[in-house]
């Protein structure tokens, strides 16, 4: 979070950021309470007692899982595995996405030739591609990462490209008049101008990398299972308490990833434009 960064060490700024982070968390907390309320409402008011196993009340889910290491330990191991896949896939997607966009930004024809591939990658439903990836790469760690990269790549490419092209014609003229080289133009104009968009892409890619990692887990069960693999196992066994606990964990994981990158975005971009840097 931004408050943990050494840059925010000045007390007033740090406190202001902490305060705004707290203020930003309120709606989220309210949403969580809302979901819990609907959950209980459905459990007790909608479902007849004999059908209540379809949505056991939250306290039962937590009570039957949290205290039981035989349930929770494999679940945390699996989550950890999935976190690894998501972060790994995200890192690869960031590098590939930025690289691809930089190449496209070099010339109009490069963009015309290369952009359609990115669009096609984005529009093929990942579920159609996943079985093939398994056949090609096996059903282990690398296949999971590939699924994750494919899902997370497009927002990185699209946002980076948009950002690299966001510098105005006058700014480009300024660089031309000063006889800037292509590399100078990229590093001192296009890339810095793209930074806000790159962070937007990163935020979206982070959320998608979680989905990608879980989809990968779900399909590829070789090696130690990820949380997606457990979701499948629990579903097959109709182990409802564990299933709901696993869903809660994946949701928390997704929210955490998104929040971390949203906070990173705010902190970096705020400093970028000199806010609070007086």
């Amino acid at each position: 979070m931004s408050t943990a960064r050494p840059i925010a060490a000045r007390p007033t700024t740090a406190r202001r950021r902490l305060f705004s982070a707290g203020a930003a968390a309120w709606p989220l907390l309210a949403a969580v309470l809302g979901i819990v309320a609907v959950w209980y409402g459905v459990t007790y008011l909608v479902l007849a007692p004999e059908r209540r196993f379809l949505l056991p009340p939250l306290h039962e889910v937590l009570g039957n899982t949290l205290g039981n290491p035989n349930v929770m330990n494999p679940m945390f191991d699996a989550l950890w595995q999935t976190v690894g896949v998501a972060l790994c896939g995200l890192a690869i997607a960031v590098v590939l996405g930025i690289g691809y966009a930089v190449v496209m930004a070099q010339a109009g024809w490069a963009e015309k030739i290369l952009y359609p591939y990115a669009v096609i990658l984005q529009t093929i439903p990942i579920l159609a591609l996943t079985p093939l990836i398994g056949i090609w790469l096996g059903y282990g760690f690398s296949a999971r990462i590939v699924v994750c990269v494919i899902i997370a790549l497009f927002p990185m490419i699209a946002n980076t490209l948009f950002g690299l092209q966001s510098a105005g014609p006058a700014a480009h003229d300024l660089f031309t008049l000063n006889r800037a080289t292509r590399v100078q133009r990229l590093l001192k104009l296009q890339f810095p101008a793209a930074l806000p968009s790159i962070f937007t892409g990163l935020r979206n890619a982070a959320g998608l990398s979680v989905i990608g990692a879980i989809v990968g887990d779900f399909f590829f069960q070789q090696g130690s299972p990820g949380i997606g693999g457990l979701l499948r196992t629990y579903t097959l066994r109709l182990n409802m308490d564990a299933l709901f606990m696993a869903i809660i964990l994946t949701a928390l994981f997704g929210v955490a990833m998104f929040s971390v990158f949203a906070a990173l975005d705010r902190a970096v971009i705020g400093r970028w434009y000199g806010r609070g840097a007086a």
Partner: protein
Amino acid sequence: MTRTLVLDDVAKAFPTGTVALEGVSLTVAAGEFVSVVGPSGCGKSTLLRLASGLDEVTGGDIEVNATSTSYVFQEPTLLEWRSALRNVELAGELRGAAKADRRKRAQEALDLVGLTGFEKQHPRQLSGGMRMRVSIARALVAEPDLALFDEPFGALDEITRLRMQTELQSLFALKGFAGLFITHSVSEAVYLSTRVVVMSGRPGRVVADIPVPWSYPRPPRLRYEPEFAALTGEVSAALEEHS
């Protein structure tokens, strides 16, 4: 006197078929500050782009006798992620000047435009007038022989605009570069310049070239003198006659 910028029978037609300029001849000598006024769309910006080498003529010749040319755009065109000082440093940085040297020059240029103490501020933290001052500092830091201005004060409020005019003519008096200044304000042109060139509507041609007699630095109250009014009247008449 060095003829810093010479345009000889210059024409510019765009691939779209638009003929922006036709038969434009114009000379700016060292120590001259020439303003160009003309109806909008008559090719004034095009003229500057040709003079700076950003674009190429389709007829006639351009001769530039300057080791360094600077360009002040209509918008301040600052890099938002850089402080004022680092924005002014940009040109030196791109041309590979040593860091200590370019930083010292940038500081001097900021002092010159009255921005001492604002070095670390980013563009978003500065007012419109201050941003334009940074832009002018960035243009003057390279000690240009030829300085080109494309309606730099057009977007500023009237009070800021008058103050910037006063500052710019004293900078000109101090530095003595050859200046070519585009504006749509007749009084701005007369107040700033040694000569005012009037252009016709598109395709733009030079239809009047009116010398301005007063020496520099010029006091702000010059604007309220009868001779000033007479000269702006003369320029306005030429403008109206040909637009």
